[in-house]
């Protein structure tokens, strides 16, 4: 299978990697000086010394995308386990303890077991993936994730031929998650799912960082799913369990409002949410009087993923 990058960029438009790298270093140094003076962390990092400062960029990264400023990404995220509004969720998510994290991998696999995240990472190659992120609430951003292909992890546990779907379960900690504690809205813990071919697709990654540093807790630390052609809520945060199944799992939002959120939830401007249009999106970081961006089918990743849904009625399988 040939994986093309999002756009065919003429060679003349590609910045020489050396220049690019140097430029980055210069900007970083400048920002660090400014930050040191102002007493704040540089915009791309969560700490002064990012863990993965010079990570190679994945070929799948769309080079032309400019990442949304980290401050915006870090302050505009839904985390319903903590709160239904983004400000409180961001604040409360800091209570999550992500130390000694382990992930249980089970179901239709040859090597089920519980794996420490550290051990998982020691066997994976991390890369930077600059992806578009489109929320079902009709806003979008561009995130420079740090992660590895989900498929690479699944291969290590050897899926059986009976594995047709992947179920992801997020952390359940009602003692620090107020909305889990009060059993509010969704059936906790949060569950998401993918079809096996979607899970094995090279665009699908598990992210452990962004902007070269460890994921902020509100953005899904320590391990989250990123499927760039699907709506944001499919990108489950703080994963503790991955199960390979014969049948599709019942996913959280789909269970809560089956007419509004389907299993697939592929970004599709032609299929409106029952209550609002999905035809356009507000790009975070864009200013007043700037038109909205016209939403693309599969969030612009159609070239790579459209074949997964070739004979499917996307209106029916929304």
């Amino acid at each position, binding site marked *: 299978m040939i994986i093309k990058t999002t756009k065919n960029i003429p060679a003349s438009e590609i910045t020489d990697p050396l220049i690019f790298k140097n430029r980055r270093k210069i900007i970083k140094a400048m920002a660090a000086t400014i930050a040191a003076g102002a007493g704040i962390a540089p915009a791309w990092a969560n700490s002064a010394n990012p863990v993965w400062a010079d990570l190679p960029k994945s070929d799948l990264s769309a080079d032309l995308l400019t990442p949304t400023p980290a401050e915006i990404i870090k302050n*505009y995220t839904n985390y*319903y386990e903590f709160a239904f509004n983004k400000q409180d969720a961001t604040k409360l998510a800091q209570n999550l303890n992500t130390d000694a994290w382990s992930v249980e991998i089970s179901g239709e696999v040859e090597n089920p077991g519980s794996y420490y995240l550290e051990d998982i990472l020691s066997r994976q190659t991390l890369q930077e993936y600059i992806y578009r992120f489109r929320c079902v609430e009709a806003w979008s951003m561009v995130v420079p994730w740090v992660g590895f292909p989900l498929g690479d992890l699944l291969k290590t546990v050897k899926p059986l031929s009976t594995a047709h779907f992947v179920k992801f379960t997020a952390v359940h900690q009602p003692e620090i998650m107020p909305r889990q504690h009060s059993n509010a809205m969704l059936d906790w813990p949060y569950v998401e799912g993918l079809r096996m071919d979607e899970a094995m697709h090279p665009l699908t990654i598990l992210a452990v960082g962004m902007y070269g540093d460890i994921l902020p807790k509100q953005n899904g630390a320590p391990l989250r799913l990123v499927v760039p052609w699907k709506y944001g809520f499919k990108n489950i945060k703080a994963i503790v369990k991955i199960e390979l199944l014969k049948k599709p799992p019942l996913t959280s939002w789909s269970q809560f409002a089956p007419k509004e959120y389907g299993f697939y939830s592929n970004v599709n401007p032609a299929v409106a949410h029952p*209550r609002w249009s*999905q035809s356009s999106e507000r790009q975070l970081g864009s200013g007043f009087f700037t038109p*909205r961006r016209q939403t693309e089918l599969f969030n612009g990743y159609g070239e790579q993923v459209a074949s997964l849904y070739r004979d499917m009625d996307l209106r029916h399988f929304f």
Partner: protein
Amino acid sequence: MILQIDNLRPKLIIGCLIPLLWLLADIVFDNLGANPIQALHIRLGDWALRFLCITLVITPLQTMTKWRGMADYRQLFGLYAFFYATLHVLAYLLIDHALVWHMIGTDIIESPYIWFGVLAYVIVFLLALTSPKWAKKRMGKNWKKLHRFIYLAAVAAVIHYFWQLKGNLAEPLFYSIIVFLLLSFRVLAWVKNRQLMKMMIPTSRRALALAEEKSMMLETARKRR
């Protein structure tokens, strides 16, 4: 007392502009968060709905308490509801969509929650248009009929608020309770009046109602003077 109330008008006119000044300050100092345009929509919509509720709460308040004279300001609050609703609509068209009409068209057609916003705005617009005294005079009985649609506007506005949300339903819930209470007050008052009319028995309540009518007559007399 009357003098004091008359002094209130300029204060209210300026006071009702505070939310706008506050919003402008937040724009200037970049205090609207990561999605300022969304924040702008919510702030302006919130104030439109708040002024609508204030407009509607005056009559029940006057009936339940001895507080009088507020009815003079109903129009002012109503016009401010229209003012903030207009800014809300303009922000949508200009600031969010930059007047790209084909995108605006698709957005409105595909978004049922916007239909309710449009309904609420059309009503408030008509009410604002017919708000001057001469319009009231010319319309006669129809004026009251038209202006009762303010309740429909309030309900539509609350649905508009509710339907655009995925979660975080606390605030629209708060407004829907307020609007529900205001509406049920009116319905109760209407039912009671009808019963009283039928029975024509001067009970203590009827006496109260009479007293209220009298005070209202006095008020109109005062205004004419």
